[in-house]
């Protein structure tokens, strides 16, 4: 914390601390909801609120039952003893397990698709000879801007006509469309720092376009590609509107399951899932930060 200079007046002293406390409150407002979820998910009672026992740190008041419920809910025989049969029952029948599997499957497929398409688009758009650059760029970014309800409704009409709605492929394509803008933005940002003469150098040394791309361009823009991919993944992982419109119960994802959980049968299982998702987002945040540092280091090397 920086020290206040000696010429500070009394009014400024007061303002300084008032200002600090206002900012503290704002940060509290930002982080508090996420922190509140964590202890509530260990509640013994099926409520969303703190019980007396929890406030007194009574060990009886805490339990892992909602985490078990993630595994058990929807199983054929949830009370059977733990065995391979129990595990396969969980894997195949538990509603949440299915949602988790779907989310990862759809998320990963959509990420691969949108990363590939987005990277290619960004490379093309960053070339100076590209005509109508601005127009094409704004069209490609628009899925991020246009309200999701409109995009999802439009996709629903269109996909129904070509028999893609209520299939995995339809949901994956929808999520790829929504994730592509993020890849384009991050890769374009990385390409700004990319030295074009490296491509010419590699070509003058006899490398073809493909080899140049793979050996020269790709390694340099890979941090941008990966962070764009992470954005695309989190977009798909967090997306519920398109799933609401396009998916059948077969393709339920985690957010979709949470959505119906909140609307129909409110139980702390949702809070347990929420806690797990917070942990996942912490991991993703860390990965992204490490990538950012790496890319800064790389750029430091190339510019010197």
């Amino acid at each position, binding site marked *: *914390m*920086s020290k206040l200079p000696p010429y500070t007046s009394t009014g*400024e002293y007061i*303002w300084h601390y008032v*200002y*600090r406390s*206002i*900012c503290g409150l*704002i*940060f509290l*407002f*930002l*982080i*508090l*909801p*996420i922190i*509140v*979820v964590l202890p509530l998910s260990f509640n013994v009672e099926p*409520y*969303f*609120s*703190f019980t007396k026992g929890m406030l007194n740190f009574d060990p009886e008041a805490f339990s892992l039952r909602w985490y078990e419920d993630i595994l058990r809910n929807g199983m054929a025989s949830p009370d059977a003893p733990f065995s391979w049969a129990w595990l396969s029952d969980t894997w195949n029948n538990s509603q949440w397990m299915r949602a988790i599997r779907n989310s990862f499957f759809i998320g990963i497929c959509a990420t691969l698709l949108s990363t590939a398409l987005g990277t290619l688009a960004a490379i093309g758009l960053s070339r100076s000879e590209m005509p109508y650059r*601005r127009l094409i*760029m*704004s069209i490609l*970014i*628009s899925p991020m*801007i*246009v*309200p*999701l*309800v*409109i995009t999802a*409704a439009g996709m*629903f009409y269109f996909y129904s006509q070509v028999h893609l709605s209520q299939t995995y492929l339809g949901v994956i394509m929808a999520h790829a469309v929504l994730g592509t803008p*993020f890849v384009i*933005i*991050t890769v*374009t*940002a990385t390409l700004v720092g990319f030295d074009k003469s490296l491509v010419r150098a590699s070509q003058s040394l006899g490398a073809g376009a493909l080899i140049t791309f793979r050996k020269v361009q790709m390694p340099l823009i890979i941090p941008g590609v990966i962070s764009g991919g992470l*954005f695309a993944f*989190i977009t798909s992982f*967090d997306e*519920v*509107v398109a799933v609401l*419109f396009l998916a059948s119960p077969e393709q339920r994802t985690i*957010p979709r399951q*949470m*959505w119906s959980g*909140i*609307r129909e049968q*409110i139980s702390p299982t949702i809070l347990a899932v*929420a806690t797990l*998702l*917070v942990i996942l*987002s*912490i991991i*993703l*945040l860390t990965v*992204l930060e490490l990538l950012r540092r790496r890319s800064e280091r790389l750029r430091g090397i190339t510019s010197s």
Partner: protein
Amino acid sequence: MKLTSQDLTPAFYAAALDGRYTVDKGFVRQNENRQIYVTLFWRTVMISVSGDGALPPSWLSSRISACNFTAYVSSNLLMIMVLLPFWTSLLVRTTAWIAILQSQGVINDLLVLVGVTTDDARFSLIYNMTGTIIAMTHILLPFMILPLYSVMKTIPPSYMRAARSLGATPTMAFLKIYMPQTIPGVGAGGLLVFILAIGYYITPALVGGQDGSLISNMIAYHMQKSLNWSLAAALGGILLAGVLLLYWAYDRVIGIDNMKLG
């Protein structure tokens, strides 16, 4: 009847604007008590503005992270406090707000404990407009803070010191020197938040209840429940036109190339 048998009709757009389109009289306004859609559009706009109302606090907070906490560690910690909500699932945050705001929730329990209110007069903070505004402000705040932060980071603190040494009062120095330089960030953040807020669907649907629902919820309702697809399309068309206009403005003023993530 004659109107609806045609292939193209403005009737649904008229309905979306709370009017009726008749063959001989053209656009007629609907009765007062049946005007819901214009109210809804206005409410959506108002909520988006109030999302922008989060501007001064976020501006303060980004200022604090930008200049006051120059110490590396604490600034990083603050950044995490902004980025973690940004990266956390929307539904997680909405669920958290339900847990906090509901009538048996954390805030009401706390208020009863302190004695501000009694057990049977708990505040209804959720499933109405209040809930929508609080939850949406929380969700959109990082989108405001991050562009502001990236602009404020580049303003050298020596400018402020120079202004002070030339005799400006702190308020004066802030208004004349610091604020004009933050305008690009304010514009970028404000416009982005407005665009995102105007099409919001999930949060109002879950915490909005009756009077906190927005135009997107109406579109989804007509798509899925009442199956009045033409009306949904008309409402969506108006919303889309509005958003595209803003998007065009955003592209003009800031340029989509300059959009930054995280």
